[in-house]
């Protein structure tokens, strides 16, 4: 059974079909790309898959379970985590605490235990810190653990967002333009990291990206969106050669 099964997903904003008839099947462990010109509806697809928007048509299933109509928090608990195009960190929290918020539903103790400092508080907090630092280390952020998230340089903020998403222990990770604003070196490093986390954390990854070196470097297959509909789909190198795709990107 496929991990993610999207069928005829669509959404309309005041008469405009932002995404129409979107289909996608992701097998477990896949590294899949979603590309297309600006305004093609890529981020809207992410917003639909994470429950930020309610689809006007179609369904999608994770591990055979219907996800349509669920709230963002429920969808995350079911196993979909994401990053954002315009970075959304918890700016006034430390780097470590950002990841610990991600661990919120993984390691629990009650509010009462927290207020009255019951044994569960110390035990779980210690485990949370260890786990969070372990994750930060993967992204080379462990030395900034006590820094405020807003004080991190841009590239590291993007990495922290990925670390936070992985902390929620997802099955499917959605990355929205992870390489935006990065230089080629950083992009290369990021590609390594994405591959590593996919293998290490047993993830399936769906990535939106404009940087074609990243797309052709890591994505096995891609879908091209244009004006909210699917333009092409298949093996990355073949799709990128498709004249329709070239035309959509470069114009007439």
């Amino acid at each position, binding site marked *: 059974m496929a991990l993610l099964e999207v069928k005829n997903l669509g959404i309309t904003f005041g008469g405009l079909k932002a995404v129409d008839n979107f289909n996608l099947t992701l097998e477990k462990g896949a590294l899949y790309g979603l590309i297309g010109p600006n305004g093609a509806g890529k981020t809207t697809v992410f917003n639909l898959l*994470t429950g*930020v928007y309610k689809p006007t048509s179609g369904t999608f299933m994770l591990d055979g379970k219907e996800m349509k109509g669920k*709230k*963002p*928090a429920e969808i*995350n*608990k079911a196993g979909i*985590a*994401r990053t*954002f195009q315009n970075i*959304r*960190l*918890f*700016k*006034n*929290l430390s780097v*470590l*605490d950002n990841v*610990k*918020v*991600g661990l*919120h*539903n993984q*390691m*629990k*103790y009650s*509010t009462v235990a*927290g*207020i*009255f*400092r019951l044994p569960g*508080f110390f035990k*779980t*907090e210690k485990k*949370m*810190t*260890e786990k969070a*630092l372990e994750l930060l280390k993967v992204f080379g952020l*462990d*030395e*900034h*653990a*006590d820094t405020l998230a807003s004080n991190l*340089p841009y590239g590291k903020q993007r990495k922290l967002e990925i670390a*936070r*998403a992985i*902390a*929620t222990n997802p099955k499917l990770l959605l990355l929205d333009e992870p390489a935006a604003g990065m230089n080629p070196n950083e992009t290369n490093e990021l590609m390594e990291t994405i591959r590593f986390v996919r293998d290490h954390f047993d993830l399936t990854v769906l990535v939106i990206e404009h940087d074609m070196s990243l797309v052709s470097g890591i994505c096995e297959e891609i879908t091209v969106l244009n004006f909210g509909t699917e333009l092409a789909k298949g093996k990355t190198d073949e799709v990128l050669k498709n004249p329709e795709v070239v035309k959509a990107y470069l114009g007439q």
Partner: protein
Amino acid sequence: MANKSNNSPLVKKKTMRPVTKQNLITYVMVIAVFTLFQTLSATGNLKYAHKALLVPVCTSIIMAVSLNLVVGVLGELSLGHAGFMCVGAYAGSFFSVLTEDVITVSWLRFILAFVIAAVCASVAGILIGIPVLRLKGDYLAIVTLAFGEIIKTIVNALYIGKDADGFHVTLDSTKLNIAADGQIILKGPQGITGTPKDSNFVVGFILIMITLFIVTNLMDSRTGRAIMSIRDNRIAAESVGIDITKYKLMVFTISAALAGCAGVLYSHNISTLTATTSNFGYNMSILVLVYVVLGGLGNIRGSIISATILYALPELLRGFSEYRMLIYAIILIVMMIVNNGTYFVKIKEKIFYNFSSKIKKDKKEVI
């Protein structure tokens, strides 16, 4: 790399975390100030007028700290905090007057009054929490303001009496139908009279310490992180599985319960409890908001300091008698402009930059 990792919290387990240290400073500060004033008061070195300020200052501090939980930690603007205080004050006084002859152990009755007030206020907190889930920003602010005014208006119109048949509750004083041997506890605009004067500075101090304990520990826990993540970025918080509804309601409930306790402290310090614009109206809510904003959003120690100074300030300015509120208003405006005005922020940044540019250069390597 190996050297740098020494900085990570995992290794420096033995040293105190910055949060714990900050909280400790706050506790020590409160204890020190309490000890000072308690000694002054006990040795008769405090003027009667100043002694009378001690309990109200404690009330203001609890109000400010509990409102900071909503405004500073959760990031929602509330203009109805005095409403919760009002619920607590009336519930506590009602209970104390009702049971004064039944429960003769005054400290036990007082504790029960706090518990009952906290419960009643938190029910009010849940009630206001429901619209909070649908509304944002200024719309939420006006709803909380409206809610506070509703509470104030209702207690001013309510008559409750008790006789052999049980309780009589009415909005119309002529329809109370109370037996001759009965007792009217809540008399509409005349409020509740005869509340036992159980509050004192020590109780106020203990209540501040309890409030501090609850709020600071809550902030430094799994729940607190979830709440602050909602404040910093609601959409991101949802995306990592934080249940916004649950935590917003929780914050409003806890904050309301604490404000309710502040109400009990207030109402057991005065002989006649009435609800006016200045004690339970939006004016009071706004005053507390001013404490919170000037003390710093999310900064608990700041709230304590600013509540103390700003509450005492108009009283200490009594020498200027009629000019005191005018001076207060001007100080408030000037402070806001100096703290937040574009021009002043730029100047501060410039000074700070010159001062810290050296340190920044050293740090660049790490980045």
